[in-house]
C-alpha cells in the first residue's frame, strides 16, 4: 500500500506554500522530506494527515484512525506524566497502551515523570511512542530529531526504522542531509517546490556535470566548502567521481 500526495498546491492567502508537489509514502519504508525552514515540509506533512486541505491535487491516506502524527513540538502534554500521556492517547483511539514501545524508547523507568521534565531527546521519543500507540498504517513525523543529541537521535532512528520494518508507512521531515540519507527515499523541497526526489543513491547518481575537489575555486558562486578544501561544480564536464547527497542538492539549487 502506498499513501501520499499527488500534485498538491497549497495557498495561504495569496502565498503559495506548496506548488504541484507529489510524494509517495510506501508501507514498510522510511520516506524523508528535506528542506530548510519555510521550504514547505510541515505544510506537506499536515496535508498528508488532513490538517490542511490542498486547493489542488489529491491526498491518499488511510482512515484517520490509522494515521499517527507527531507535530514539530513533539505533541506531548508537558503537565501529564509519561504514563498519563500514553494512557490518554491510547484512550482517545480506544487502543490498549503499548508498554513495549515505552520499553523500547527507554522510558519505562520514568513513567511517573512529567513530560515537561524530560530531556529534549526523551520528549521526542515519547512523541514518537504516542504517534505509534494505535499501531497506525501511516505515521507522519515532523522534524522528530530536531534538537535531539546524537545518542538519543540514534535511538529514535532505531525506533523509526523498526516501525517501517514492521510494515508501517513512515514519513518524516528533517533539515539535515546526514539524516535524510538514512531514508529509503527522499523528497527535497525548496520554497514550496519539489527540487529532487528518489532513493538517495539514485538522486546522487543523477547529479549533472562533474564535481571536483579544489584548493581554490575557479568560480566561487559554483563552489562550496568541505572543511579546508572546496567542492566545485563544473556543469559542462562529464560526470566523474562520487558526489554525495549534499553535493547533489547544492548543484540542483544552483540550477543543475
Amino acid at each position, binding site marked *: 500500500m502506498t499513501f501520499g500526495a499527488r500534485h498538491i498546491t497549497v495557498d495561504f492567502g495569496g502565498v503559495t506554500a506548496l506548488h504541484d508537489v507529489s510524494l509517495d509514502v510506501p508501507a*514498510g519504508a*522510511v520516506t524523508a522530506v528535506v*528542506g*530548510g*525552514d*519555510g*521550504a514547505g515540509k510541515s505544510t506537506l506533512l499536515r496535508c498528508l494527515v488532513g490538517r490542511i486541505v490542498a486547493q489542488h491535487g489529491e491526498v491518499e491516506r488511510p482512515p484517520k484512525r490509522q494515521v499517527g502524527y507527531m507535530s514539530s513540538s513533539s505533541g506531548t502534554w508537558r503537565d501529564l506524566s509519561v504514563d498519563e500521556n500514553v494512557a490518554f492517547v491510547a484512550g482517545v483511539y480506544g487502543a490498549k497502551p503499548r508498554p513495549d514501545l515505552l520499553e523500547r524508547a527507554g522510558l519505562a523507568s520514568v513513567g511517573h515523570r512529567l513530560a515537561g521534565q524530560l*530531556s*529534549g*531527546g526523551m520528549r521526542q521519543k515519547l512523541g514518537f511512542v504516542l504517534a505509534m500507540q494505535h499501531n497506525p498504517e501511516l505515521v507522519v513525523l515532523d522534524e522528530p530529531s*530536531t*534538537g*535531539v*543529541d*546524537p*545518542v*538519543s*537521535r*540514534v535511538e529514535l*532512528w*532505531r525506533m523509526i*526504522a*523498526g516501525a*517501517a*520494518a*514492521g*510494515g508501517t508507512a513512515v514519513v518524516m521531515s528533517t*533539515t*539535515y*542531509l*546526514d539524516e535524510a*540519507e*538514512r*531514508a*529509503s527515499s527522499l523528497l527535497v523541497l*525548496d520554497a514550496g517546490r519539489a527540487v529532487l526526489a528518489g*532513493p*538517495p*543513491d539514485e538522486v546522487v547518481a543523477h547529479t549533472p556535470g562533474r564535481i571536483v575537489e579544489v584548493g581554490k575555486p575557479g568560480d566561487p558562486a559554483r563552489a*562550496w*566548502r*568541505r*572543511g*579546508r578544501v572546496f567542492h566545485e561544480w563544473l556543469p559542462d564536464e562529464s560526470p566523474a567521481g562520487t558526489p554525495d547527497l*549534499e553535493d547533489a*542538492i*547544492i548543484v540542483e*539549487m*544552483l540550477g543543475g
Partner: protein
Amino acid sequence: MAEQSSRSEHEPGALAKADNLTKTFGSFTAVADASLDVRTGEIVGLLGANGAGKTTLLRMLLGLLRPTSGAVALFGTPPSRRERRRLGYVPQGLGLYTDLTVAENVRFSAEAFGVDDIALPDSLQAISGRLVGEIGLGRQRQLAFACALGHRPELLVLDEPTSGVDALARARLWDTIHDQAESGVGVLVTTHYMQEAQQCDRLVIMALGRVVATGTVADIVGDAKAVEVRTDDWAGAFTALDDAGLPVTLAGRRVRVAETSPDDVRRALAGIEASVDEVPATLEETMLAISRSA
C-alpha cells in the same frame, strides 16, 4: 579600534585555553578534568550528548561560570567583560530582536559593541527595512552572523550555526565561517550534527563531563569499522539484528551495524540472505562507541 590592533600583537597560540577544568554542583560533577584550547585560525568542534558537559565547559571558558578547579585563559588572561568584548557569539536562538527591522538590529549591535558601522551582505541590504520576524530563517542566521562579526572579534563561538537552513544556505554560512578562520579568527562550534562536525579542523568529544576524544575526524575515526548489510529483505534483516540487541541503523536501503564483527552479524541474521561487508565506520558510529564506553 584598540581591539583591532591587538589582533596582530596577540601572542601566537591559544585564544581560549581551559586547563583541567572541573565543575561540581553539590555532589554532581558536571565537568571533570577537561582541557580544551582554540588557536588562531582554527575551527574546533565541540561534540557530545546532552548532559555531557559542553555548555558548562563553554560557560567556564567564557568566564560566565567559575570552575571548581582548573584554570581558564581567554586571550591570555582570566576571562572578564573586557575579554568577552573580543569575541563574537551566535547562540542557537540567534539573539536577534524579531520586532525590530534588519537595519535596527544592526544599529543596536553596532552601538552595543561601540563600532561605527556593520557591513551587510547585499542579500540583507536589500531587505534592511523589514522586520526580522518576517524574514526567513536562512536570512536571520546570516544577519546574526553579520551582527556577531561586526566588531571584528578574534574568537567566534557558534552554537549549532546552521540549524534549520537548507543545503545551499548551510554551505554559504560555512563559507563565512571558513573565511573568518582563514583571516585568523579562532572558531569554536558546538553541534549535534556530524555534517557540521566534518567541517571542523579538530574535534573535542565529551561524555559524562570528560573529554573522551580529540583530534581531526580522521584521527578520531581511525581504523574503526562497521558492518554493512545489503539484502532484498532489509526489514527482516533489521528486525533480526535489532532483536539480537545489536546497534543497528538504517542507511538508505542498507542496514549498518556498529561495534560488531561480520561473523556476529551473520549469526544474528540467522539465514537471511545478505551480503555482509566490513566497511570504515562513520564519525557518528565512532562517536557513539566512544560515548558508550565512557
